[in-house]
């Protein structure tokens, strides 16, 4: 048992997103969409029903012109490392979403999900989306789907998997090359696509890894860490208002908390 209260393997995959480098170009979001066969509809204007594993939020400091500042905040699943369970894995009645304690990735078994959406309700980050329609791709996109990722059927929930299939691929390669499987690292599609290299990814338990070092950076913070969800996604920002807002103790000029 670790201090987290559950059995842990040596590997804890995590991500660090440098908001000071993020330009809000959304390349991460688009790359994720293509890599993970995320279906979409002709009319995506209802954002409360569109599926987006990597959503980019817009934050501002609520000040007037001259002092006005803003930042973009890309939000994948936080792969919460809360003791025993992530908020979502705790509530799923059929064990369709579970955390792999070998590597900390919170996965989702689509053919087992009954679509009760309890996990959607449990996740404070809105990282989970439901398939409200049968997935469909316009011609000829269906021929371009990624064969390594199964598309989801309607009536089930889906979310960011930290591109788990890339880990499997990297491990398969390491196995053939007779390397240590637990030394393997990889890069999810979002990190690969980011033109400013704002996204780092790796083993948080490896003190020498870039992510482990960045997670200790004085600029580092996690979203809503007060809720004890223990996200494995860290953000970097040199702006104090961003760090404070991320952890829900942001005061605006009137002293009121923003909601």
């Amino acid at each position, binding site marked *: 048992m670790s201090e987290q209260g559950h059995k842990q393997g040596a590997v804890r995959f995590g991500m660090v997103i440098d908001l000071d480098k993020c330009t809000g170009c959304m390349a991460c979001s688009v790359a994720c969409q293509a890599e993970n066969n995320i279906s979409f509809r002709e009319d995506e204007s*209802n954002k*409360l*029903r569109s599926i987006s594993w990597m959503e980019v*939020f*817009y*934050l501002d400091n609520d000040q007037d012109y001259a002092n006005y500042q803003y930042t973009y*905040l890309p939000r994948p699943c936080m792969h*919460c490392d*809360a003791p*025993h*369970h992530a*908020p979502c894995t*705790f*509530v*799923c*009645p*059929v*064990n*369709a979403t579970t955390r792999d304690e070998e590597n900390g990735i919170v996965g989702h078994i689509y053919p*087992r*999900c*009954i*679509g*009760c*959406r*309890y996990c*959607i*309700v*449990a*996740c*404070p*980050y*809105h990282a*989970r*989306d*439901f*398939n*409200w*329609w*049968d997935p469909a791709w316009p011609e000829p996109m269906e021929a371009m789907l990624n064969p390594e990722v199964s598309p989801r*059927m*309607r*009536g*089930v*929930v889906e979310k960011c998997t930290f591109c788990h299939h890339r880990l499997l691929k990297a491990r398969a390669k390491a196995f053939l090359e007779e390397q240590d499987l637990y030394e393997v690292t990889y890069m999810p599609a979002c990190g690969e696509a980011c033109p400013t290299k704002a996204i780092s990814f790796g083993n948080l338990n490896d003190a020498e890894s870039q992510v482990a070092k960045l997670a200790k950076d004085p600029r580092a913070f996690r*979203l*809503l860490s*007060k*809720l*004890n*969800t223990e996200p494995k996604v860290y953000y970097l920002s040199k702006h104090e208002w961003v760090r404070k*807002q*991320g*952890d*829900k*103790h*942001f005061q605006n000029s009137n002293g009121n*908390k*923003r*909601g």
Partner: protein
Amino acid sequence: MMDKALIPEGVKRCPLPVFGIWLLVLLAFIGWGVYAGVAVLIQALHLTGLNDYFGFGLYITADLAIIALGAGAFFSGFLYYGLSRLFPALKELHKIINLAVIVGFVCYTGALAVLLLEVGQPLRAWFGYWHANVHSMLTEVIFCITCYAIVLVIEYVPIILSNRKLEAIRSARVFGHTLHDLMAIFALTGTFLSFFHQGSLGGVAGVLFARPFAYRTGFFIWPWTFFLFILSAIASGPAFTALVCRSMEAVTRKKLVDRSVYELIAKIVGTLLSIYIVLKIVDTVYWALFQSPQFGFNLGDYYRAPYGMWLLFVEIIVCGVLPTAALLYPRTRQSNIVMFLSFLLACVGVTINRFVMTIQAIAAPVMPFDKWEVYVPTVYEWAPIIAMIAYCALILSLSYRYLPLFPREKELNPTS
């Protein structure tokens, strides 16, 4: 009357054509709801007003509310079969116990039917038993609701078998009487299951540790909402049974139970409601002043129109403190208007509570840069709920017409 042979002896019922028209009206509503439900099953949940922000909506709210209101069945059973030996005054509940069982039966079976619409993959609903996650409150809900629905069927069967025609069949009569003799066991099993069931419905919200609006600490594995849901259900359930009985009296223009039964229920509801409302106020104060600030929230963060602070006021003061006071004072309780209005307020209060713990709980954003959203259910959600209510009315109407539900009906309404 063509169905005279089926009607209990010595009581009067409306003419069959009138009853037939009433049934047709109910069936029309049921047909409408079934049509909407089938459409949701075939075309998927995008027909509803649900979305990725509001994963739960009207279906769940109505289910939680109707199950709380149906709690009169198990709790009256518990008082009558379990406690009346110690407190003989509770024997009075005998006069309304059949109705309480049927109200419970219709509420639970109706809720189960709606629950099937709620899941995105209804054909996999049985995975709840097969791949059960023992940590999930929903698993506890699934197991308890199934077992208790079975118990309710067993409790309902002897009432059906007491029909005049069925009684005439020897085997049916013997079976019915045997079941009836075992009723105390089923009633107490049902009580046990239903306590857990009501509680686990409260647990569904209370365990959401990353949703500060809903989350509560608690005792052992159960959050405080577990206990509050049980208490609010057993307080409002008997009130609902009494209201149903009163409505039947109004429709049939007959006296079906003695006033003493209502009087007893008023005392029970008043007492339970007073315990509940005190604990609810303590819970709310702790949640608002101590727990939420730890998570970076204050009370104002949770309320915004249309989900304003008025909900809290109406739930706790108007539908909690006021009916409690009215039912506890013998003087106010004596007035029929005040008593039934208090029953109604108690039922509205529990419904608001279920709404708040379902929809308001997820409307309040958690991420500071998140926006408030408003949930508007569509006709595909309303229709099955209205159909569920019509189904309840249908079973109650049929039961009233053909089964001897009220042991005192004959004496209270002598046919000259």
